[in-house]
């Protein structure tokens, strides 16, 4: 009962925020609404019993990545997009495409996922311990690889941005 309500509320918030992301012309507004999406997704993760992922969502996404976005937006002091009429190609090709995507996807989901397995809060939860175990036993190699990737990204970012700063 409760979990259903919470899901609906935060799903609603997420969708509204996402729509806001798309329709807002100003990057900061989009960024804020994206943060909203992430926050509500974090709650949904908690509902799904993914405590660690929820926390990571908050720390990594909302706390670090989006801060970076906001920082850059502020740094460039990017103004709002000057409203241009949507191109005919986008209108007559993109829009139907999206609708089709949405419809078919949901149809497929409905078709593939058998009903009757409800998501109930607390039935299953994987805390940091479980995630850590899996991460450092089965997924050790990917973990290391990803860490190397991060290092590369740091260096790349520094190299790219240095020109910008000084």
């Amino acid at each position, binding site marked *: 009962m409760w979990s259903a309500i919470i899901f609906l509320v935060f799903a609603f918030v997420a*969708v509204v925020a996402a729509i806001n992301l798309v329709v807002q012309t100003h990057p900061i507004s989009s960024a804020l609404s994206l943060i909203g999406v992430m926050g509500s997704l974090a709650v949904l993760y908690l509902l799904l*019993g993914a405590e660690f*992922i929820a926390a*990571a969502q908050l720390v*990594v996404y909302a706390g670090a990545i989006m801060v*970076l976005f906001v920082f850059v937006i502020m740094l460039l002091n*990017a103004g709002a997009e000057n409203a241009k009429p949507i191109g005919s190609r986008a209108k007559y090709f993109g829009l139907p495409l999206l609708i089709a995507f949405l419809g078919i996807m949901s149809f497929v989901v409905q078709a593939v996922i058998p009903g009757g*397995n*409800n998501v109930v809060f607390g039935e299953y939860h994987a805390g940091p311990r479980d*995630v850590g175990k899996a991460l450092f036993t089965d997924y050790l190699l990917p973990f290391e690889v990803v860490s190397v990737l991060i290092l590369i990204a740091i260096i790349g970012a520094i190299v790219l941005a240095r020109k910008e700063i000084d």
Partner: protein
Amino acid sequence: MNGVPLSWYLILSTVLFALGIAGFLYRRNIITMFMSIELMLNAVNLTFVAFSYKLRQVDGHIFTFFVMVVAAAEAAVGLAIILTVFKNRQTLEIDEVSSMKY
């Protein structure tokens, strides 16, 4: 009714993904497009977590974790690139950077 069907989560993520695509297609600001990509990633993460709930396996979480890390790296590099682009062309309009050299 106890809880909600799993498919709701999936459809939610579908909707978010579609919105991400829409943002990518209809926004002209590089940063906003970038954020739309992040939105899509989030949508995918949701499916991962939902399925790992259904299958009672932690692997979905691991995948989500990796997606986050990669997204972080991507954000760092991507934003650096955006900074450089802005420095070179004083604009964030994607349509105006369509040419490789100028």
